[in-house]
């Protein structure tokens, strides 16, 4: 079972746990309608598009409203700590929430007790929390962008806003392989990395395993949610049973293809890209 956890930017949304389904332009969880296009909702939408296409179970989600104070985030951490053994996901994808290092440690300790252990994916501030708490190596997949791989490589940084300036400035397509190595050396990386950018780098502790740079759709970098969709697709593909490296390569390619088919512009909405995911897999990708 694929389990996705993260916040929704609505202060009034209670903690929700359950199967997600699509209802028009919205996601529906426990009779609550959630806009499908922002942050964790974009990730869920992309995962759902793919689970529908693959004809596997839809994701189960744990969501709570949070506009930045962290109350909803805390509810999700606490629910996970309490219930994750009972839920026993095969893939657990953690996403937008307040990076609370103490609660992340508590959750990680619970996750270590699971047998079989779930594939652990972290993106957004879940990735920040895992790295800052010194737990990165215990995760299976991180999906950083260029600024975030610099953060993972900086052994002292607790948030991307406070990374070493020179490391940030030196991070470009040509230096990504070196910075990936630095992240592994400093225990800031998960078992697999997908570094998103003009070229997408898939790597493990031995270095770069694959580079995906076609089709080139530079406008995708402007669109809020294009990283979230990669993480959502990757989570769904791993839940389907693909090995992690293959899932990461396919997700990176599918995202670019969806952007191309949607003729993405810097003003496009992520929903336009997500809508193209099924046809991209139908017409362009073989799984």
């Amino acid at each position, binding site marked *: 079972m694929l389990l996705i956890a993260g*916040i*929704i*930017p609505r202060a009034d949304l209670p903690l929700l746990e359950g199967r997600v389904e699509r209802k028009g332009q919205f996601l529906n969880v426990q009779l609550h309608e959630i806009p499908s296009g*922002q*942050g*964790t*909702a974009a990730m869920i939408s992309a995962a759902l598009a793919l689970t529908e296409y693959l004809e596997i179970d839809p994701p189960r989600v744990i969501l709570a409203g*949070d*506009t*930045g*104070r*962290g109350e909803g985030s805390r509810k999700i951490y606490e629910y996970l700590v309490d219930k994750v053994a009972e839920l026993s996901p*095969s893939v657990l994808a953690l996403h*937008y*929430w*307040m*990076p*609370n*290092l*103490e609660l992340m*440690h508590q959750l*990680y300790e619970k996750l*270590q007790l699971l047998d*079989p*252990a*779930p594939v652990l994916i972290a*993106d*957004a*501030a879940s990735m*920040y929390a895992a790295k800052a*708490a*010194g*737990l990165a*190596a*215990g995760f*299976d997949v991180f999906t950083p*962008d260029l*600024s975030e791989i610099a953060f993972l490589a*900086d052994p*002292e*940084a*607790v*948030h*991307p*806003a*406070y*990374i*070493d*300036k020179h490391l*940030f400035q030196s991070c470009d397509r040509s230096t990504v392989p070196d910075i990936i190595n630095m992240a592994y050396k400093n225990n800031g990386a998960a078992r697999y990395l997908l570094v998103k950018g003009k070229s997408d780098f898939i790597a493990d502790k031995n270095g770069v395993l694959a580079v995906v740079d076609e089709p080139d759709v530079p406008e995708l*970098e*402007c*669109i*809020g*949610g294009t*990283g979230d969709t990669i993480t959502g697709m990757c989570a769904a593909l791993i839940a389907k049973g693909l090995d*992690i490296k293959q899932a990461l390569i396919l997700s990176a390619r599918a995202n670019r293809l969806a952007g191309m088919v949607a003729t993405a*512009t*810097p*003003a496009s909405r992520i929903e336009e890209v997500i809508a193209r995911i099924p046809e991209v897999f139908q017409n362009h990708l073989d799984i």
Partner: protein
Amino acid sequence: MFWGKEKTKRSSGSDKSKKHKGKGLVLFDSVEEAIRAERLVAKAGYACSLVAPPPQLRKGCDVAVEIDLVEQPAIERVLEQASYVEVTPLSGSGKLLDIIQIFRYGNYTMVRAGNMKLTFEEPSGIIVNTSGGGCPDIPYLHIELMGKRLDEIPRPKDIGHTLCALMLDRAVEGARDIWMNGGEK
């Protein structure tokens, strides 16, 4: 399933190393100001405590308020009623990233500040997208900014709570500079 034997070797870090991770210090000129500030921050609902700053970070008096660094902008708002020297992380770079990068896509300009990106249309100054970041106020700020003109939006540092909001604010500031100078930086 995938961790196998490696899993048992993983360390969750020593208690000592865990203790200060993710923390920052608010530094003060006087002990009285530090005590007053700690009360204000706690009353506003943020985790904090009075501590002795390590010698290398000490500026002013020998008492500081320890905070969760990610909440820096929200706590700085609370401390507008107080007087403090600065906020500094307990580890890593002591300075917030202040690098602005600009990318052009025809009539659109994307401004990147650290991990946050904001794209606006020229010459209208309308924000057409924000992306990047990971803290819980970022999806909320995206909704607040989308489709609005750069000079008609609330500042992310005024309505956000986290370091991602602070970086988005820097992107807004950079975008405003470009837009108000007719596209030149």
